[in-house]
């Protein structure tokens, strides 16, 4: 039997890979009623949201989960009212978070972000976010009472899904900036960054983001999410009985990550790119929930 030469071996391996890909494709084709592009768009927008809006931790995940819970029309108004109550509780943190976004926008426009102002605002956000669970407990108890067991289980799935996405985008390792879906890759598309800019930004961000990651303990946040989801999935629920509260750390970490990102990105942009980035950040700051 003749041994294969190197090119033939690689060809064979490529064939094996193709075979494996074909098998995988057969079981994960895009849905019919939802094209893969729309799926990617929703995923991209969700990542964008979780990178920029840090105000209520699990309460924020719950409010977002209600968006797609699929409640029947008979109870929709009541559930909407409870979601509004959650937004009312997050409003003080939301106001501070928006102030932060505007500080980033001003800094992006000028090329230098006022770090002292940002640090002071993050401290305010930490305090404001920490009060969200206590404020929202009554609304969550009423929500639990209003939902059917299947809907509670669905909400739990969604809260865990939001947490997973939040963690992916706020605790992700920084690579070379070309990883699909990474913050730098998506900023590159948003601002038409050159390859040299992406490389320079990735290099600049590496050390400060690594230092930030060392100050955040995702296990504490995980314990908080699990405490809520375990309790909410049960027949009896009292939000006040959940002792864990990682809302402040979640908001602080997400905001600090955003601060480090934009503080390091802004000086490396062209004036046109800075204007575009500032516009986008101001748009984020303008996003307000409808409170009924």
């Amino acid at each position, binding site marked *: 039997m003749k041994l294969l030469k190197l090119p033939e071996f690689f060809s064979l391996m490529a064939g094996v890979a193709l075979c494996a890909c074909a098998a995988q494709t057969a079981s994960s084709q895009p849905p*019919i*009623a939802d094209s893969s592009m729309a799926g990617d768009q929703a995923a991209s927008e969700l990542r964008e949201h979780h990178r920029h809006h840090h105000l209520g931790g699990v309460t924020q995940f719950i409010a977002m989960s209600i968006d797609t819970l699929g409640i029947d029309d008979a109870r929709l108004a009541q559930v909407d009212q409870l979601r509004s109550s959650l937004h009312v509780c997050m409003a003080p943190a939301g106001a501070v978070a928006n102030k932060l976004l505007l500080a980033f926008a001003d800094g992006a426009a000028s090329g230098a972000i006022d770090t002292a102002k940002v640090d002071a605002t993050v401290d305010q956000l930490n305090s404001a976010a920490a009060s969200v669970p206590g404020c929202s407990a009554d609304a969550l108890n009423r929500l639990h009472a209003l939902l059917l067991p299947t809907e509670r289980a669905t909400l739990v799935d969604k809260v865990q899904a939001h947490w997973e996405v939040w963690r992916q985008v706020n605790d992700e390792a920084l690579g070379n900036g070309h990883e699909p879906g990474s913050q730098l890759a998506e900023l590159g598309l948003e601002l038409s960054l050159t390859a040299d800019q992406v490389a320079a930004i990735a290099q600049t961000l590496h050390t400060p983001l690594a230092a930030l990651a060392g100050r955040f303990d995702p296990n504490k946040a995980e314990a908080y999410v699990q405490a809520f989801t375990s309790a909410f999935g049960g027949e009896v629920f009292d939000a006040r009985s959940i002792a864990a509260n990682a809302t402040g750390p979640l908001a602080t970490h997400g905001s600090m990550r955003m601060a480090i990102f934009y503080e390091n990105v802004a000086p490396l942009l062209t004036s046109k790119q800075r204007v575009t980035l500032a516009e986008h950040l101001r748009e984020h700051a303008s996003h307000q929930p409808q409170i009924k």
Partner: protein
Amino acid sequence: MKKTLVTMLNGALCAGALSLALSSTPAGAQVEVSISPPAWFIATASPVYYDGHASYWYGNRWYYRDGGAWRNYHGEPGYLHDYRGHHEQGRQFYGRAHGGGYRRR
């Protein structure tokens, strides 16, 4: 000739890998590949409630949570098939283009 040999080997290797996977399974056992909708999909898609489960149409199949596991229907239930024929999968968009998800559509 060499190309033919490589092509044949490709096919044989694929078939071999498949048969190996099947032959290594105990008699009577079913092979179940664990696939579940990704987190971003669960977070942005509205489910359809059927048979006591929230079902999601993803990857050409209906998935539902059964305790701690995700499962799919091997034969599409008539209700879900009809539902799919008359409704689009509800999705939520949270980006700047959609007012951060707060804009009601």
